[in-house]
């Protein structure tokens, strides 16, 4: 999203000097490498999954909740539902926290405090998932055990994943709110419009699409998040019967079973990876993108 002004400036400075040629060449190379490695990963997953796709019973894979590799039963429906529920729950936790914290950072906190808080949030955003997972297991799970025993399950997974996503969401949302903000506030103040009105009627509606776009990217990450969720979700493969039910995600299955999987089981796990890909892609296709305004 570079502004035209910037591009012009850099173009003017460019001559046909060799260093720039090398520079742009290496950039193209790096981009090509990134693309090629993604293609290689997709190809690898599909090739690994091929034996399963050949032998699989498709209706079972998509509609049966019974995943018992030891008994040659590979139903991924409960895993798919589990993944979507955990991510939905995490969004439910992270979005209110993220948006309200970002509003506080941009509109309410004094400048000095806001910039320091933002720095702290950025550090928290970098905390490794396994640390957040451990926090979930030792703090969130015992707290939830009183409400939805035994504590491990959908709520714990949603809260833990939500905590993992919230800091990045705060940073993204604050960034979004801050753009063109000074002019907006100046005009509003001159018209005697309150801060709350500006937020509710101008900032939020105007930035909604961008917020949804950046949330979608985060959702992709949420679907991919494995370890922290695996520590607190309970990981029983079933359609959740109640809100406190134990759930298993697609990626948790891969992480839990891959070390011991052989033959068709291993291939079935690759098929789960392919399914994860498909879910992320479908999500990007359905939700409006960041670029459109």
């Amino acid at each position: 999203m570079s502004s035209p002004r910037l591009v012009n400036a850099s173009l003017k400075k460019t001559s046909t000097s060799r260093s720039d040629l090398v520079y742009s060449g290496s950039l193209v190379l790096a981009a090509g490498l990134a693309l090629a490695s993604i293609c290689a990963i997709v190809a690898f997953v599909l090739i690994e999954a091929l034996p399963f796709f050949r032998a699989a019973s498709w209706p079972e894979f998509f509609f049966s909740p019974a995943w018992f590799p030891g008994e040659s039963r590979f139903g991924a429906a409960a895993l798919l539902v589990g993944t979507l529920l955990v991510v939905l729950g995490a969004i439910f936790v992270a979005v209110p926290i993220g948006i309200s914290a970002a509003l506080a950072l941009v509109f309410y906190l004094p400048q000095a405090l806001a910039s320091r808080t933002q720095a702290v949030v950025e550090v928290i955003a970098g905390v490794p998932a396994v640390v957040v997972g451990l926090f979930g297991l030792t703090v969130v799970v015992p707290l939830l055990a009183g409400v939805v025993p035994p504590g491990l399950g959908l709520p714990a997974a949603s809260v833990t994943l939500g905590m993992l996503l919230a800091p990045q969401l705060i940073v993204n949302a604050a960034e979004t709110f801050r753009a063109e903000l000074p002019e907006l506030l100046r005009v509003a103040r001159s018209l005697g419009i309150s801060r709350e009105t500006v937020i509710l009627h101008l900032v939020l509606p105007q930035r909604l699409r961008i917020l949804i776009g950046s949330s979608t990217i985060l959702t992709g990450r949420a679907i991919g998040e494995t370890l922290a969720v695996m520590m607190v979700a309970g990981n029983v493969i079933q359609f959740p019967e109640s809100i406190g039910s134990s759930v298993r995600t697609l990626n948790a299955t891969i992480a839990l079973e891959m070390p011991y999987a052989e033959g068709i089981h291993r291939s079935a796990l690759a098929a789960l990876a392919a399914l994860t890909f498909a879910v992320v892609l479908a999500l990007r296709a359905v939700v409006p993108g960041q670029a459109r305004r």
Partner: protein
Amino acid sequence: MLDSCRSFYALRRARSPMLRRIGFFASALLFLGAHAAAEPKAAVLITGSSTVAPLMVEVAKAFEKAHQGARVDVQTGGSARGVSDCRAGLNQIGMISRDPKPDETDFRAVRIARDGLAFIASPDAGVSGLTHDQILSVYRGTVTNWRELGGKDLRIAVVSKAEGRAALELFMAKFGIKSSEIKAQAIVGDEEQAIKTVTATRGSIAYLSVSTVAQAVGRGAKIVPLSYNGNSPTIAAVRSGVYPLTRFLHLIDCGKGTAASKAFLDFVVAEAGQRFIEENQYIPL
């Protein structure tokens, strides 16, 4: 490799600063790469079961001390990885925490230690032992409260292991239960996750290896080892054969080993290695 490294290094005299920078980074990278590739192949790589791995790490340290210049790397990934790596020649020694299957005749399995399947509960369950049938009914989901087993009025949180784990296979074999019959509230992967989950979850029960339980109790983890049919899952009970839920831990050799890996195998089963196994809370043969 080194030639291209040198030619990139020559770029340091290039006129353009960008070219000089690229030359520097590329030559540094290639230099490091060449070094990694030139590393001597004398290292022994051991992969496989996460039950056996911590022990092998300790034995490896002692082996490296006793043999100048020897290097032993241990990586986990489950018994299945131990076998597949061994067949593919990706390791020199594999670790499996089960007996070799009847069709696995293409490698030599060496018994290195015993292990037992122990049941543990969280302290709030108020139970110190269970019978074979009680355990079965807990894992089948027909008994769901600790009160029915002489404990507190608390829901049982059944913890089981993920598909393919050696402890699950041993559990299924000893209890004659299929994985689809197990009604669990939580499924865990490796041994550490089992311990962490039991300490964090009220009224939970889990099964894992006796040696892991001994280690966890030794460092003060809040778990209660449950006696099975009146037999406490202690290392002594496994060793004397009183405790019935036992298995052997093996190292496997697919005939692709080096002199160093053969020396390591000998070291483990010899007296010094066995004494080491005992010191590390595992159970010697």
